[in-house]
């Protein structure tokens, strides 16, 4: 008998809750996850793997007009959005006609209606107003392509070696063997040249940044040196490439 009663009760509860869910425009707890794809910086997707976009604004005004906005679907959430491989503090919400739209680093997120599946980027650059949201929280506005860095030269390696000895070796070891700092011999992440340069410029955790003290050429030389020493063979990084991440 007791079981029967509970069943009825829960049935009533469910009925009472249904209208409320409908009113919230079918929003569930949204997920924002980091994703990767060829020829794209690490970017954000929703729980279905669909690319997330931001609308670029100029002088505080959206550059996406009403017609442009029709192509976008705000990413709504029932409550606090859940992150996957993103910094949770970058996630927030903003009021969207009584519902909650997910923001990342303060910028409202959208999917693009014509994107049918994970990996579609049909909204990228739409109306020069809609761009993929990067994992760093920046609209991925295409820039002029940067030339390949070219071959590793002995001159750059020598310059990088000297700079490494005076700036890096105290923590990473004279031969990149690591101690206080990360071991750089065979360190797989050095394969990402721009990421290496960005880390040297901005620092990471206990590692200080060198943006104030090292030029693009010097950062390029150190990046090239660590990527091509002690058995590493990841190729050169150019000063021009460093400039794009400074």
């Amino acid at each position, binding site marked *: 008998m007791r079981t029967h009663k509970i069943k009825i009760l829960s049935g009533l509860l469910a009925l009472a809750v249904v209208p409320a869910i409908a009113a919230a425009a079918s929003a569930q707890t949204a997920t924002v996850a*980091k994703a990767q794809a060829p020829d794209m910086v*690490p970017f954000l997707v929703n729980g279905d793997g669909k690319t997330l976009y931001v609308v670029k604004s100029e002088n505080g005004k959206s550059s996406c007009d009403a017609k442009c906005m029709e192509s976008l679907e705000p990413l709504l959430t029932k409550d*606090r959005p*859940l*992150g*996957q*491989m*993103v*910094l*949770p*503090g*970058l*996630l927030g919400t903003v009021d969207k006609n009584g519902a909650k739209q997910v923001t990342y*680093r303060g910028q409202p997120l959208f999917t693009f209606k014509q994107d049918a599946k994970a990996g579609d980027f049909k909204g990228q650059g739409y109306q020069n107003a809609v761009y993929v949201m990067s*994992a*760093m*929280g920046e609209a991925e506005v295409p820039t002029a392509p940067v030339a390949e860095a070219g071959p590793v030269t002995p001159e750059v390696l020598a310059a990088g070696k000297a700079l490494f000895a005076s700036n890096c070796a*105290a*923590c990473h070891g004279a031969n990149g063997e*690591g*101690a*206080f700092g*990360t*071991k*750089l011999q*065979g*360190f*797989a*992440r050095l394969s990402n040249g721009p*990421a290496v340069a960005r880390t040297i410029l*901005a*620092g*990471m*955790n*206990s*590692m*200080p*940044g060198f943006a104030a003290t090292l030029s693009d050429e010097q950062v390029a030389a150190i990046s090239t040196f660590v990527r091509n020493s002690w058995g590493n063979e990841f190729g050169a990084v150019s000063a021009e490439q460093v400039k794009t991440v400074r």
Partner: protein
Amino acid sequence: MKLNSLITALSAALALTAGAAHAQVENYRPVTDKETLSPAPEDWLMWRRTVDNQAYSPLDSINTKNVGDLRMEWSWNLPVYGLQEAAPLVRDGVMFLGLNQGIVQALNAVTGELLWEYRQKLPEFTGGYHGAQANRQRNNIVLYQDKVILTTPDSKLVALDAATGKMVWEHQVLDWEKGYSFTAGPLAIDGKIFTGTSGCSIAGTAGGCFITAHDAATGKELWRLNTIGGPEVDGTWGGLAQENRWGGSPWITGSYDPKRKTLYWGVGMPLPYPAVLRGSADGAALYTNSTLAIDAETGKVKWHYQHLPRDDWDLDSPFERVLVESEIAPTKGEVSYMSKNVKPGQKYDVIVSVPGKYGTVFVLDRDTGELLWARDTAYQNVIKGFTDEGKAITNTELFAKSIGETVTVCGGRDLGKLWMAGAYSPLTNAFYVPVSESCKDLTPQVIEVRKGESVGAQASGKAHFAPGQDTTGRVYAVDVKSGKLLWVQKQAPIFTSSVMTTGGGLVFTGDSMREFAAWDQKDGKKLWDVKLNTTIGGHPTTYSVNGKQYVAVVTGANAQTPVAASLSPELKKVVNGGNALFVFALPDAKK
């Protein structure tokens, strides 16, 4: 004679080969629970010698009167370099060394002769982080029953036969590929082994960091306690889902109270370090930066005390919890907090600790977790004060309000209290604790969260001397009863080894400029010192064989040295590497 009967010594001509046992310890006497709780004065069975983490040896042959005659007895080159955080253990004249990369050696403690060596087979670490963890294996072994219990950088618990160095069993505690590791060794008592996880800063560890209990006979897990998830703490993370929380590494071995059957274990900081990127709003983020009193049978938290709620600066709070019985009568003007409930003249079972990098001493009641008194050592500006009930008040004015905003925090980030543990002496009722004193520029930094990497998300900039100071190395001698400082040693070289106290009235310390020294516990007068090959490291220990007392210390790099050297360039004049072990004794009496 006793030693000879216990050890089958083979010729030193034996070639070293990985994993090979060269000789075996004959008639190894298993360590009983009784001995774990009350070890023979001759032995040093775990990192801080006893389960109360006091690091006090009653041996007194070497004492304030004769320590000036101390001289080297033997030395030993260690087979692996990296940071030096090891603790030489001794049982019946056999020394056991738990070293970086999961290498364990057994040596004749009188001659240094190698008896056996064990090398844990490790996966190839390519991500950078685990390689670094493997090179900072701290006190990674404990002697219990007939085994050496080892923790490994790839998150395993391993039991070796103490007599032969052969593996008896191994147990994978957590998935190292998510980022979990061990740097600190286990605690073993009452048929159980307890571990504290390291590495919960790493992306893949989101949602859980653990203290675990295992059956000492098999390694089988008995319970696990999540330090950042569960109904008791879920409401303290500002609405963050469990899978969006990081940190809470209990990465220093806890202490044990046999009367209460309670573990006292410290828990580290939350991540990302700055709240603006962590997303925990004004939540305290439990159990980060807390002392946990844990029922050893069930793993249930009896009480917690949070030393630094809402940490915004990676100031951690896992460091050694030392169990002491003392009268408590804090002196006004000396302490920054004193409980109104303290009854003068009454003896208390307390926990004495400098739990976090910022150097504040906390004395807690072991039954209730009540704060009895607190005081600063190094200059700090992160704890603003305490409520009437003794809750710590974090200085939220020092929070970075936005990404890219730099704050200068005097709290020892990268150069403060670290794993180098303090020691207690019952002779003086004082706690002797090494701390580096400094300030640091910190800036919240947006990062791409990547597999195998930390989610700290804070740039650590320039270090500064604390206001009015021109050095960073400190040892504070703190009277447990009154909170007064008996003495303070200040110097430019940072103290890079743990501290040890002995029944001979001595305090042993080691620094980054190669000095290993003995001080008088009473007044801090330096009575003996020696310069060794490189930075002094690890945990000094003392033991006795055939009535002769020895002092052992290891050398090798310390994680804080580069930051200290950025302030005091003369500290660069030491060559890292060359990790070694040195053993000292008094000259034998002339026959």
